[in-house]
């Protein structure tokens, strides 16, 4: 499975993307939510960086566990428990399986258990689930992630804050889908999908 060094690289790239897109994520959330997703994620990322730099972990699993704790304690809102759960479940699975798609599946299951969302409800699940399927079939690409993110545009939100908008939530990207998209794009860009 992923080494500590690999996992650190993955999350560092993710952190950079979040920071670069902080305002964009908040703007997206401003349209269909309450405008804080970028700020929430950036707050979590800052803490995650601190924690990861201070730690000297033995495995990728441990890195993910530390990251999970940092995100859980700083993001807040809906995204905090979801990211925290995703990373924690992936961390747990890494100690058992050697298969990245199984790891991602564990994260996906955790998020679904926590948030009770299915695919098609315009949440991060709409990226998480197809990413898992592509990984499993061995052809996850940046384009596939981006297509999944883009697919949330036409969905009507029925979970989370955007659901209060009903029909009016159609036509915009889901901010959580965009941010989790960065997580998986980072994984690909670091060349970690087939280690």
């Amino acid at each position, binding site marked *: 499975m992923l080494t500590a060094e690999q996992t650190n690289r993955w999350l560092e790239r993710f952190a950079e993307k979040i920071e670069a897109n902080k305002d964009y994520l*908040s703007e997206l959330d401003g349209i269909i939510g309450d405008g804080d997703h970028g700020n929430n994620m950036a707050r979590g990322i800052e803490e995650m960086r601190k924690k990861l730099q201070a730690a000297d972990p033995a495995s990728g699993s441990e890195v993910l566990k530390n990251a999970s704790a940092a995100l859980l304690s700083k993001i807040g*809102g809906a995204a905090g*428990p979801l990211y925290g759960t995703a990373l924690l479940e992936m961390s747990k699975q890494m100690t058992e399986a050697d298969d990245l798609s199984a790891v991602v599946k564990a994260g996906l299951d955790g998020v679904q258990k926590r948030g009770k969302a299915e695919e098609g409800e315009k949440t991060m699940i709409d990226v998480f689930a197809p990413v898992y399927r592509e990984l499993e079939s061995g052809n996850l690409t940046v384009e596939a992630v981006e297509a999944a993110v883009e697919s949330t545009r036409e969905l009507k939100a029925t979970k*989370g804050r955007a659901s209060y*908008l009903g029909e009016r939530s159609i036509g915009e990207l889901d901010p959580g889908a965009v941010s989790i998209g960065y997580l998986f794009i980072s994984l690909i860009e670091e060349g970690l999908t087939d280690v």
Partner: protein
Amino acid sequence: MKKIINEPSNVVDEMLDGFVYANGDRVKRIEDTTVIAQKDIQLNKVALVSGGGSGHEPAHAGFVGQGMLQAAVSGEVFTSPTPDQVFEGIKAADAGAGVFLIIKNYTGDVMNFDMAKELAEAEGINVDYVIVDDDIAVEDSTHTAGKRGVAGTVFVHKILGAAADRGYSLHDLKQLADRLVLNVKSVGVAMTAATVPEVGKPGFTLADDEMEYGVGIHSEPGYKRTAIKSAEEIAAELTAQLKKAFDFQTGQEYALLINGLGATPLMEQYILANDVNKQLSNEAIAIPYKKVGNWMTSLDMNGVSLTMLKLEDDWVELLNHPVSVTDW
């Protein structure tokens, strides 16, 4: 953005310190947390913990004290607090008889409080909870995250706080709480949106002659945007919504809360109270308890909400039970 603040990212931390500075005889801040806890919590009573995103002051810290909440946990502005913070609140409040959580129905709050509950239970603290979803502006369907928790939460705090003070067990509090949330409903109107300090501009825009019914306390969309109405018309609309939702029956008794959303002068709230009275006096119901003021605000939002609670048993007594908190 005209705000009396320093760094926008520090508003919660500084507010909490200011709160403890002003009310340090009654409350304390648990170090390195966003938890405001009652000093000298009475042993062997169920402790109440609530909280949520900041920006709703005096909720929730203003309700900490004997007879109401034992701890309030603050998140960032309009952002639910994290599980570790809520867990700190639970630990600070626990007096040996268990902790009862009062949660407003938002995806984030529900998940964060739920994770905190798991953490606390793992440490052997008995925890139960209720989710308040009083905002009838939202349809409660499988197509939404459910009705939002808004100002009605304040009645839940007050009544459960009184019950806990009278020695209710965790189990009895849960029973009472479940009945309360079925009986409390709210609906609001906004003239302007709130401006989150870190965002720097209002959550939405209303023209100078517009207002919107049903807006949430984080600037969530409402159900009807219209030209500005008179207090009388607003009272008619809000009471009609509540009447429909409750289906008023002769002889029923209700408690009433008129809640300013932050920037609305008390004068206007009382004018609305007068019009609400005119509307409700046509109904064969009684209103033995009324309260007007800023209780569950939305930063600098100009607007009000109207909450009604259908009264059962001794709930009026519990509403009138003495408290020692900063804002009641």
